[in-house]
């Protein structure tokens, strides 16, 4: 009995220690963001004795963060909407419609997931450049308007739906569009939520693509803006931490809101591999 209690205590200690290490950077970021510049030399992890909320305002104003936020918001909303709608449509066609080359197309879509991003980077940039899309929302959204991973999620989900509802509607002469939008999509909220949270985090956190297709400060996204901000304010740790907090917050909130769908999405695809 005693050994068992000891074991439980040890397990708790290890878990708590690990969780502390995992969360420590967040804690550190937050406390630094709230400290006055002069308190930086205090011992680490000490909570600020007085809260310097103005760091957030100063960081917000030191660079065009409102504009970065607007750009990231437009890009993220655009990518989430486009990926969800287009991937659902493609997933539906691949799951339900019969046409020549369906399997080939499905494996083609899966195959694009194996192409590493750096391989497509240069030609994609050239395409966007040739279209005159540098420094536009088109460049930020359209090349990522479809997600092969989301198509896969939707297809698997549609395959698991009973066919009867759709068949009855087909008999009544309803077209595919009506069936898809009126019957299938309303039944698909779980997979829509999973796909949307993946798209959201992908878009909000994305860095390399926005970095190369935007030049003007007016078109930078929050991540690119933060990286540039860091270049200018290299050692102003309070301001940098405040900016990093602002940029991280939407990602954390979105994750917390849709945690269950997100984790289910990972474990389902992970285990079915």
């Amino acid at each position, binding site marked *: 009995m005693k050994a068992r209690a000891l074991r439980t205590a040890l397990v708790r200690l290890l878990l708590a220690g690990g969780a502390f290490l995992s969360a420590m950077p967040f804690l550190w970021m937050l406390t630094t963001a709230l400290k006055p510049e002069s308190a930086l030399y205090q011992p680490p992890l000490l909570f600020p004795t007085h809260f310097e909320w103005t760091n957030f305002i100063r960081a917000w104003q030191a660079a065009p963060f409102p504009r970065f936020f607007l750009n990231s918001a437009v890009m993220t909303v655009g990518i989430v909407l486009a990926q969800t709608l287009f991937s659902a449509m493609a997933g539906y066609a691949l799951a339900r419609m019969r046409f020549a080359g369906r399997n080939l197309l499905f494996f083609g879509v899966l195959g694009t997931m194996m192409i590493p991003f*750096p391989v497509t980077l240069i030609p994609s940039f050239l395409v966007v450049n040739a279209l005159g899309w540098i420094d536009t929302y088109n460049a930020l959204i359209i090349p990522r308007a479809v997600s092969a991973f989301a198509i896969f999620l939707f297809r698997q989900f549609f395959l698991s739906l009973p066919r009867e509802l759709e068949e009855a509607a087909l008999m009544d002469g309803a077209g595919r569009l009506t069936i898809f939008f009126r019957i299938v999509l309303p039944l698909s909220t779980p997979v829509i939520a999973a796909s949307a949270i993946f798209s959201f985090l992908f878009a909000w956190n994305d860095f390399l693509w926005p970095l190369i297709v935007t030049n003007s400060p007016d078109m930078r996204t929050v991540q690119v803006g933060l990286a540039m901000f860091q270049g200018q304010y290299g050692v102003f740790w309070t301001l940098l931490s405040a900016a990093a907090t602002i940029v*991280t917050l939407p990602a954390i909130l979105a994750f917390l809101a849709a945690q269950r769908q997100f984790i289910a999405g990972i474990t389902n695809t992970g285990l079915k591999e």
Partner: protein
Amino acid sequence: MVNGVRLQKTPSKASWWRRTLGEWPAVLFFLLPTVAVLGTFNLYPALYSLYLSLFEWNGLSPAREFVGLANYARLLASGEFWNSLRVTLLYAGGVTLLALALGLGVAVLLNQPILGQSVYRVLYFLPVITPTVASGVVWKYLFDPTQGVVNRGLLAVGLEGPSWLSDPSWALAAVVVVGVWKRVGFNMVVYLAALQGIPRAYYEAAQLDGAGPWQQFRHITLPLLAPTTFFLIVTALIDAFQVFDLVYVMTSGGPLSSTDVLGYYLYRQAFRYSELGFASAVAYVMFALIFVVTVVQFRLSRGGGQGEG
């Protein structure tokens, strides 16, 4: 009566369309966005960068010179490239193995009735969804030689830490730490789901045979997790081979190229020096690296006969 007429007409018209075209109009409509976007921004670029890698081109001048395999030859003769390859492999190997071991450890500890399990899960998972740029910024501060929490902690136990990101022999290790920190939660979640799929009866039977916790772990848990482990190794390697953001933010490839991973090397060649042909060759070397890992995965997961799906 008007209704009756329309009812008769519509189905016959619809069936005429259906007979001649089948589902093709609908199929085209549903798949057009996907084919257009994946075709233009995935498939075509993948092929086009192979083609570009045979040219010398700065991206601006209308003339591009066909050089055959010269870019690849130049690559293989370049010390910078071999350094990048070595750094990338070290980074990928380090992150993959450390995050695998830690992820498994946390998952095993969490796979029992424990107070606050869901809170732990969130705390371990948060780094996964944190933007890489913000992570890099914060860790840069943590690794600051004098003000950073890492060296202050070391000092508290009487050790003097190196100057991490500005020390060529420590910078890569510091970036690996951040990579691991961002990966453990993902591995943990996938392992945890796999652990929960192992029937309790196996362990009960082993206990009856007198197997201790370590033996149970060694002979039941580990073998049954093998397919999961394999999946996690492959996905982690593929991710890590492409690392860019962290290096861009934390070290810019330095000091003395000690963190100059392939992703960053490619970026510099393409977007700083406008060597688009040469950079495309670098991209194809990355592709080859990832392709090898993927093929090995297919081979082994078939050969192993795990019957996964």
